[in-house]
């Protein structure tokens, strides 16, 4: 009895918490004119539900190219970031060299640096490096500045430090060089931490807004969030289309999260913090 009540309470709270998203999903199928009708009772109206909004949103927001751009952007950041961040973290964790403490201090400082506020100096720097204008350049400008992240370096370093040295020493005896040790021994050993970093990066960069807003000037370089913002601000405002677009923008990242969920154990998140 008590247990059933507990379940009931939990279910009610969960439902309340997710109500905005449930409303979004439901309203995205409703006819344009009825998105806001009926107030709370509108949630239980199933009249005229259809996919019209989705078709219109896909076409009007050019979501096909938007999704492609966002996927390329996030994939680029993940790929380069995984390699570069873990290499730097490995060096900071495993090598003794002059300037190590200083570098580590720098990493700690850069963690708190809010990138958004430096977006414009960054734009001008990116311009001077020749990364503005065409499609490929814009993509590079989306990826390169955010591939290396101080927090990820720090986080992975903590995990490298926590590894027992026996494995690596065994590899040294086998004659493995430092890169072999990093690649075949240390990296696989911190796989859960890597997964955590990947998921956080997907969440962060799928929702990137201010930097793409500045750097993606042309329609064909737009990411999904810009496509949505465009639909949201360009007349005629069609609420149904906007909602359908919001759902479509959300689905891929939800899917990634669902697939990655079991690799990301909450305790890994904790390990990096102390």
């Amino acid at each position: 009895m008590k247990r059933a009540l507990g379940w009931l309470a939990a279910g009610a709270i969960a439902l309340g918490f997710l109500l905005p998203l449930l409303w979004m999903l439901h309203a995205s199928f409703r006819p344009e004119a009825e998105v806001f009708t009926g107030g709370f009772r509108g949630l239980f109206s199933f009249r005229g539900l259809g996919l019209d909004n989705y078709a219109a949103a896909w076409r009007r927001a050019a979501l096909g190219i938007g999704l492609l751009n966002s996927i390329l952007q996030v994939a680029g950041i993940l790929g380069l970031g995984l390699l570069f961040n873990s290499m730097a973290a490995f060096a900071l964790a495993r090598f003794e060299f002059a300037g190590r403490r200083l570098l580590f201090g720098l990493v700690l400082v850069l963690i708190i640096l809010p990138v958004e506020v430096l977006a414009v100096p960054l734009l001008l720097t990116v311009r001077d490096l020749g990364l503005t204008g065409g499609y490929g350049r814009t993509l590079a400008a989306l990826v390169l500045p955010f591939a290396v992240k101080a927090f990820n370096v720090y986080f992975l370093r903590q995990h490298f430090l926590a590894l027992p040295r026996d494995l690596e020493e065994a590899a040294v005896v086998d004659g493995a060089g430092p890169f072999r040790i990093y690649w075949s021994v240390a990296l696989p050993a911190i796989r859960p931490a890597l997964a955590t970093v990947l998921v956080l990066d997907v969440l962060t960069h799928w929702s990137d807004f201010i930097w793409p807003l500045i750097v993606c000037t042309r329609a064909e370089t737009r990411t999904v969030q810009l496509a949505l913002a465009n639909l949201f601000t360009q007349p005629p405002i069609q609420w149904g289309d906007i909602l359908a677009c919001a759902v479509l923008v959300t689905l891929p990242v939800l899917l990634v999260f669902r697939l990655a969920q079991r690799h990301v154990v909450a305790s890994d998140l904790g390990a990096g913090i102390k």
Partner: protein
Amino acid sequence: MNRAGGATRATPWLFLAPALLLLGAFALVPMLRAARWSFTGADLLDVGGARWIGAANYSDLLTDPRFRRAFFNTALFALMVVPAQAALAFFLALWVNRPEPHWRWLRTVFFVPVVVSMPVLAVLWTMLYQPLRGDQMGLVNALVAGLGLPAQDWLQNPRLALPAIAFMSVWQGVGFQMMIFLAGLQNLSKDQLEAAQIDGANAGQRLRHVIVPAMRSSIAFVLTATLILSFRLFVQPYLMTRGGPADSTVSLIQFVYETTFLGRELGRACAGAMLFLLLVAGLTLLQRLFAREVRS
């Protein structure tokens, strides 16, 4: 690692090179350039023609009512979001911290808004906050009306707009902080809790004397992270209110953005950015000092 591993003096630098190169080019260089531009009258469309004007940008900003307002709004937003989000996340973590696997779904529920990106949610909540007009209304007003309270024009009322944005922001981010607390709770040894239980401590005492002290580092992390994140407020006012009504939601980052792209005043925007960075650095330092104080 020693030389037996085949490492030479250059090896660590080879490992560090790509990261250092990118961080240097895309973090340090922009920061240094921003610092330099902040003392010039640089125009976005003619950066080369900038003249050195000393601290004029800074003194102008400090007396500019809009900049002050942006500062005040951002601080107020942080003041609303940080305690609310941290406290809510803490209690959610305590609540969902159950060993049985069939309770796992509850964590996922609270994490879902974190996964849905902020621009999507800003657009969504603009619709949820829609005022009442005939039988057309947003969900929030539908609920408010259902409770017998007067419907509000949430985003158009200077007193309500920032709290409304803060509310949706807490809802969006609470799942992330909850996960961090959850990690802390799971590292808490069972013995400690059980010992406390045997001692006959009630829930409140357990919380105060066992759980909170043991979670100190998680709490410190969540407070710092939430503070810094809340200072980055941009997407919500940019998409939901455009800084209005009556400047009540204009944020620091938004101020920097509009100064650059509408006003073209790059130098002044950089001065704003530098003040922002100083502020964030100062807050972080303060938090560190405070945390050390508590620990000792």
